[in-house]
């Protein structure tokens, strides 16, 4: 739709989120798991929102997830993506929810609780991997 197109913005990691994004570049989705209560958390944070412990280990997510909600953007504020495109909230097997794009299926075929699996996709024309999700193979 938009003839005028801007480059897609890359994440600017903070001190706290740097290990997360470094993991993504190795094709690993890293969650923090609390050493004291075992709670998995995302976004990356210095303490556990369940028990306030500051001890945590980075652990690799299984990559299994399901659709929690999604929208399909038809009119974009910022002309960097071809419309229509989806932005979804997915729930990881470990519990945390995150924003992402669902790829490998039509927007019309997305449904709540749809089983998904993790994949990594390059940001258009740029050397940066983003965690995304595609419909899971029959399990």
């Amino acid at each position, binding site marked *: 739709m938009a003839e005028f197109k801007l480059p*897609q*913005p*890359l*994440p*600017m*990691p*903070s001190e706290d*989120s740097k290990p997360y*994004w470094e993991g993504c570049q190795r094709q690993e989705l890293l969650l923090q798991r609390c050493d004291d209560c075992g*709670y998995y*958390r*995302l*976004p990356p*944070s210095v303490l556990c*929102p*369940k028990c306030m412990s500051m001890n945590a280990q980075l652990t690799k997510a299984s990559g299994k997830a399901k659709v*929690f*909600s*999604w*929208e*399909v*953007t*038809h*009119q*974009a*504020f*910022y002309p*960097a*993506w071809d419309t*229509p*495109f989806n*932005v*979804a*909230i997915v729930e990881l097997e470990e*519990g*945390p*929810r*995150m*924003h*992402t*794009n669902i790829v490998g299926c039509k*927007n019309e075929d997305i449904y*709540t609780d749809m089983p998904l699996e993790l994949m990594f996709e390059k*940001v258009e024309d740029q050397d940066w991997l*983003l965690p995304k999700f595609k419909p899971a193979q029959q399990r």
Partner: protein
Amino acid sequence: MSLKDTCAIVGVGLTKLAKKNPERSTMGFALEGCKIAIEDARLTKDDVDGLLLVHPSQQGERHGFAGRVADLLGISSTFTATVDCGGATPIVLVQMATMAVNAGMCHTVVCCYGWQNNPIDVPLGLPPGFEFTLTYGEVGANPFLAQVARRHMHDFGTTSRQLGAVAVACRKHANMNPNAQMYGRPMTLEDHQNSRLIAEPFRLLDCPPWTDGGGAVVVTSAERAKDLKHRPIYISGWGQAHGAPLLRPWRRPEVSDWDVWKKAGEMAFRMAGVTQKDIDVCGLYDAFTIVFLLQLEAGGFCKVGESGPFVEDGRVELGGELPCNTAGGLLSEGHTFGFGHIAEAVRQLRGDCGERQVKDAETAFITGFGGVVNEYPPTFSLSTLIIRR
């Protein structure tokens, strides 16, 4: 000590509201809003000694905003703050003003906002730090609230036509308000259903317009309010609740995603000592139709999940059981961050609403809702206010 009825709203004002008005800056709108509200109270600027301002985030990284508004207004203030809870802020300002007056820091506070959507002194661009949303194309408020709406539809069977009923009610009221941005532009449920998709499931008419403008309300002690021109509108109850809907990093199994804001409603009714049955008119925050539904639930006017059927058949329109957003709301009066809701509730309780007056309106319930959209996790605040004549 309860602060119930210790302060009153004695002046309200909104500037002209328009989709584009390049004649004023954010600062200019805030100052004009303050002037209108102070004059509405029949006060002078020298009667004001406190100033609170909604954080104007479109101004980028700038500081000391409230203090500068106070100085440019020419007041000698002993209490100022710039407050950042998005659309929840106007009501939060009224709450803070009441606290400050009771704490003896000041006696009369003007609470204001200004908003120039396209400031010529701020370069266009994406703000930094939105690493978990912008990268996926989640920009602005539409996508997240659309995701909220989609999940509400899934959990409770809410329909697009029910969202449309909210938009229709607001537009009907705006057509009785010559100052509304959408005055003279009637709209039907079919118009809503036929409007183009923006962020599915949202259609154009689920979304608020862009609005350049400003506004303010003046809060003073109940004692001082007695001597002023207008009948005082007392601040009887309030509450706040904050949470990251759908994405709460620490999810409590005993609280559903939809119960996050109920505390703010319960707190206000408890403080005011009234029930939902006592409310004559509501101003429910409505930047997006789904937000209105969430406010009905948070206010306890229906059970969580039942707001969709609640708004059908004109129940929230003038003449209905619970008239809401009688000036047109954010959706059709204009995006005033909720100052429009406070101003309209005060006018209703003063009996100044003419054609759209709710007969014998004595008590009003108002909400504000907003916060962070693109920073992670997207966190929203709900503020509530019960005022009475």
